[in-house]
């Protein structure tokens, strides 16, 4: 994980900064330069709410080396109040009791440690409410 890349994504990963199209109201996350719905190029910057609903999920049992010490862990697609969807880990839960439709809270968590550089990478994870 390169430092510049990590740094420029902080606004998305720490603050859930998104863009709301000034023309059609569509919300993009992360921020974009052009609205995929109406091709308008002006957005208001907003922070997404931290509550949502689990749409679908899985339990990763065979993970990449970066996440192998966390396996098995759950991942899911969560639809936030604004209608925006994010993919994230589902944590602080019994992985055998997940169900689509569960209410979720978005929290700020450690995502993985980067062995080669020693950097700790943070971001969002979801927790059942």
């Amino acid at each position, binding site marked *: 994980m390169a430092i510049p*890349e990590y740094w420029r*994504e902080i606004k998305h990963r720490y603050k859930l900064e998104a863009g709301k199209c000034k023309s059609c109201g569509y919300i993009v996350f*992360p921020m974009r330069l052009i609205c995929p719905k109406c091709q308008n190029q002006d957005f208001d910057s907003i922070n997404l709410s931290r509550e949502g609903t689990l*749409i*679908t*999920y*899985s*339990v*990763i*049992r*065979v*993970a*990449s*080396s*970066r*996440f192998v010490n*966390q396996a098995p*862990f759950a*991942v*899911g*697609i969560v639809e936030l109040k604004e209608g925006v*969807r*994010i*993919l*994230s*880990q589902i944590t602080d839960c019994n992985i055998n009791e997940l169900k*689509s439709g569960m209410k979720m809270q978005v929290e700020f968590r450690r*995502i*993985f440690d980067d062995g080669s550089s020693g950097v700790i*990478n943070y*971001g969002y994870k979801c927790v059942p409410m």
Partner: protein
Amino acid sequence: MQQDIAVIGIGLSRWGELWEQSLRDIFVESALHAIKDSGVDHIDSMYVGSMSPGLFNNQEHLAALLADYLGVGSIPSTRVESACASGGLAMKMACLDIMSGTSEIVLAGGVEKMTDVDTDGATLALASAADYAYEVYQGVTFPGLYAMIARMHMDKYGTTEQQLAEVAVKNHLHGSMNSMAQFPQKINVDAVLNSVVIADPLHILDCSPITDGAAAVILCSAEKARQLKLHPQIRISGLGHATDTMALHSREDITALSAVEKAGITALKMSGKKIDDIDLFEVHDCFTIAEICILEALGLFPKGKGGNAAASGKTRFDGPMPVNTSGGLKAKGHPVGATGIAQIVEIVTQLREQAGERQVKNARVGLTQNMGGSGGSCLVHILEAV
């Protein structure tokens, strides 16, 4: 299509864990088979689909390397990439080259040499087909993405793990009749359900394997093909290419593969066919759930009704709509960049009536469907025996 294009030669390298052969060797092996099969004495240009020789082999600039080792020196050579759909994309670009009048005889090939890295290296290389910053960063793997599609299909339409397993069982049955298949063993539903879980609800036997392999075909204008006539005439009558959002979570319907639907509609329209006119299909079953969603997206089954396709026997080689007679990615193997071309090889083999035990009766029109990532890109081709 505006102009008829013919497939006049097909070739495969060996497929499997080919530790004794390099990327360049396996590509050239498949290309020499295709050239020999076609009877041509030269090619004017070549296209190579490969997903990530950079991450798998520290080697980019594949177009120049492979033209060099194929002994065709100075000809135009182009590498294209669309993740696991790179082979299908090479096929399309070879067609455009001929349609544009730039080349007369063109080689379209695909290759991936995946066992030069360990399993973790392969996992990371394959993950590069997903959105690195918003999917891979979160810890999801490729099986994990398709597992979330499967979970939603099960929740929404009542599809079962048994129905997923039936796709693997059917494709391994087909693979058992294909001497080129990497895993020609027949399996049963219990074997799938008892195999280790990779990402719930997908077991390892729901997943396509890691494979080294290459495939190549020779294309030319239909007019040129009539002069050569080594083989029954096979023409390409339609091609479709479409994209979708990169990230799975950005799609309105997680189980709908809209790039597949759009590419299918484009190809069918170009060929003047309806889906019911197609006699057999090679589709991108990277995971069992993928085959189910693809058949729905192509319109072979209504939305949500694809789950029973394999279990009902309909998609068996001897059923009414044979799917993946080659064994599919599941049993034949999935060297990602080669897969799209190998699908063409299987359809041509069937249309030539050279498929032996797994021959589909009265096969006249075949369709290939090759997909990148979790469905972010798709190529469809329609081939017909003339």
